């Protein structure tokens, strides 16, 4: 049984790269165009003799797009992982073979994470050569972290509900909104422990977004900052696998 699922790994990776991975890249490219239009970035910023200010502008643009790609790729990961298979009943044919749903989807999750890191690193390499130097290792590590935290949440939601994508968008949106509120309250000197704790009820989307800049610059990140997204991701992943084991067909 292990061999059957393992033999299918290449197919799963190929499906991700040519499907959801490519879609995440295209959506990020669209976001890049929108970001350029909104911030008035023109082709002149790619001039090798551009000023330091322009260089910083490019770095910021890359950080925003990296965070966007990481979140979009993680959100899209759930599209084919479980819920769509159930909705269209593909799982009934797949798992009439001697294949464990838990192993199949766990493998799919890992491979999609690997695919996301590969695609993101490849796009970052192109960016580094053509536009502005960035840390490739840091970028790949960042994508893996985002995958573990937000991807695991998307995976869990995909096991729980057919409306996983709107629920994920709502949760991430709420998290980013609460983060803005907390930041505003702190800057006014009105922040408190209660409102800080409220953020732990929501996914660590704001932490992932904030970390893009440090990782893309190849900076050393305080492990305490990483603890929340890593622990959140592991808990979500374990919950998803336990639920799958208990109700493999969602019935």
């Amino acid at each position, binding site marked *: 049984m292990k061999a059957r699922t393992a033999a*299918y790994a290449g*197919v799963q990776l190929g499906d991700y790269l040519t499907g959801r991975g490519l879609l995440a890249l295209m959506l990020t490219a669209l976001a890049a165009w929108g970001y350029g239009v909104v911030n008035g970035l023109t082709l002149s910023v790619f001039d090798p003799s551009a000023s330091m200010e322009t260089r910083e502008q490019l770095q910021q643009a890359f950080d925003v797009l990296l965070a966007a790609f990481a979140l979009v790729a993680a959100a899209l990961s759930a599209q084919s992982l479980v819920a769509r298979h159930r909705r269209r*009943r593909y799982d009934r*044919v797949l*798992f009439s073979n*001697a294949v464990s749903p838990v192993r199949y989807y766990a493998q799919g999750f890992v491979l999609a994470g690997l695919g996301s890191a590969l695609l993101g690193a490849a796009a970052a390499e192109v960016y580094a050569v053509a536009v502005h130097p960035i840390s490739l290792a840091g970028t790949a590590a960042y994508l893996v972290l985002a995958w573990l935290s937000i991807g695991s949440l998307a995976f869990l939601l995909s096991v729980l509900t057919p409306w996983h994508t709107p629920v994920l968008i709502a949760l991430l949106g709420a998290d980013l909104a609460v983060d803005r509120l907390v930041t505003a309250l702190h800057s006014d000197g009105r922040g408190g422990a209660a409102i800080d704790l409220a953020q732990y009820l929501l996914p660590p989307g704001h932490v992932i977004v904030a970390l893009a800049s440090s990782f893309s610059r190849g900076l050393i990140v305080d492990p305490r900052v990483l603890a929340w997204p890593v622990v959140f991701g592991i808990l979500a992943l374990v919950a998803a696998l336990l639920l799958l084991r208990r109700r493999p067909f969602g019935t």
Partner: protein
Amino acid sequence: MIELSHVSKTYAPTFGRSARALDDVSIRVAAGEVAGISGPAGSGKSTLLSLVLGHERPTSGTLRIDGMDPRRFVEREGIAYQPQRLGVPRRWRVVDALTRLAMLAGVRASETRARVDSAIRDLGLVEERRRRVKSLSQDARVRFGLAPALLADRRVIVLDEPLDGLSTESLELLRGLVVRLRAFDRAILIASRDTAELQRITDRVTFIDRGRIRRIGAQRPVTPANVETVFQLTIHHGGEHVVAVFPTSISLGRGTYSVRVSVAALNRGLRDLIDRGVLLTSVAPVNATIEPVPTPAMDAVAT
């Protein structure tokens, strides 16, 4: 092999009234048997198949396949399953879909292509080989759905509405396929609304309506011993006696022969061969997906 004992299934949604899809159903399908489940739409046929495949669990009663919980049996051995609806993404091409299914069915990489080609040929899908599944006619879709039964050698085959929308030619193909897939160690379960056709291709039809068994058709005497299966014999010397003992045997060359007989007839024939001084080196059941191909020229050299 498949045993349902007082099985009931009730769906209890969070909102709305609960519905009993199966009520105290007891059925036994023995190895070597082709069993039919008939009944109108919504009678509980698909629920019954879902339980057999381990997609759902009975609310009460017990269901065992070869003594195991269905899900455990499926994860250990797999079941060849033809779903009522297309069970693969519609954008996949026929050949790619079958290759993927063969991989998941555990077909060795070196054999995958041959198995897929053979299934495509046997199901009459040669012209549709490169077409996307979504563009197949209803008739071709049903034939495509039968592929899992041909891609791997399974002990349990479950077909859900294989007669829906079949042309006359495809119906003949299905009839031939059922005969070919029947084996002494295999149970085949077919659900369909077409009771008359089920009576023709199965050994026994159980008619269910509103979740209950209404009647069970007369059963043909089927035991593992009298089900005809294809066996391959390998003979060291004395091959000239094989045709005399097994008149319908096919020589495959190099001292190997294919014979379609019941287990009882095989045993009688083997005794006869040994009495005639034939030296046998092996006897094995043949995977139903591999058709014997006679090679007289090679046979002449071997014997």
